[in-house]
């Protein structure tokens, strides 16, 4: 019976580290070299928009960037995109995208718009514009 109980707990304990759940948890953060928080002062909001700086067009500026960094800049070069859109487009967790965008901000290759500050409602005139915009859809 002892054998059977052990079987219940998992016949191959060593493989527990390699189950389906382990994959997506470990690999994306390899792109951030294990970092889980960005160097930027503010936690980047899901709807913060990433805007490339003119310096991002400058060739040979930074050799330390990963392909993911480059892809973020390229995705934003025509139309700036939000953190959430980048995460969905790159199929990466939001946390990973935050770190990568944080690197780009530090390198002054992009800047990030700050959405309405928490605990503050947007301006009344903006709300009116949203209502009109929705009605006109």
């Amino acid at each position, binding site marked *: 019976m002892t054998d059977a109980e052990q079987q219940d707990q998992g016949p191959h304990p060593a493989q527990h580290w390699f189950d389906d759940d382990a994959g997506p948890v470990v690999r994306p953060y390899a792109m951030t070299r294990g970092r889980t928080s960005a160097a930027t002062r503010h936690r980047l909001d899901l709807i913060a928009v990433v805007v*490339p700086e003119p310096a991002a067009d400058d060739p040979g500026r930074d050799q330390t960037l990963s392909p993911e960094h480059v892809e973020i800049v390229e995705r934003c070069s025509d139309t700036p995109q939000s953190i*959430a859109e980048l995460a969905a487009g790159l199929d990466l967790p939001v946390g990973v995208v935050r770190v990568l965008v944080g690197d780009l901000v530090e390198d002054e290759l992009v800047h990030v718009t700050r*959405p309405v500050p928490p605990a503050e409602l947007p301006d009344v005139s*903006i709300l009116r514009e949203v209502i009109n915009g929705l009605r006109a859809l």
Partner: protein
Amino acid sequence: MAFGRSSRKKPLVEPVTLKILVAGGFGVGKTTLVGAVSEIRPLRTEEILSEAGRPVDDLHGVENKSTTTVAMDFGRITLRDDLVLYLFGTPGQDRFWFLWDELAQGALGAVVLADTRRLEESFAAIDYFERRGIPFTVAVNCFEGAQRFPAESVRGALDLDPEVELLMCDARDRESVKNVLVAVVEHALVLADRPAAPVPT
């Protein structure tokens, strides 16, 4: 390293971005509602959380697992070049309420999507938005075949404040969802116009 294949000719538009949350029980139609008005197919983004120690997380069988992956579906409505509204479906299960804090930060308002067959699944969302003073509207998704109740009895069952609007809607219908979103923003407008301190009733 060269970015972009052409040099930039005109300055990029930096849009003002706003978000509205769509909350409600699992399977109530949140993603359908987002999809009905979004100009993009609802996208899914994942957040890896290391909050496994939360008491409500049932980790039976995965005791070594220290992270949880939570998926959020969202859509986008470009109202103008420089004004973009995002809709975020909150994770369906109550146990991910702690994620809402981040989602709710800076949110313009919220829709609580309710199903009259399972009204109790809306309670958590209503409580949450009431407590944080986030303007919200309750939209009852009128599923085909579901019994319809008068709005007043649904209001009573949900114990809604008189100022909270309750609408019947069809989460698949663009016009219907537009009306719900307009109601949310109008409610936010009323609150924004009001003096800061809430008047006790």
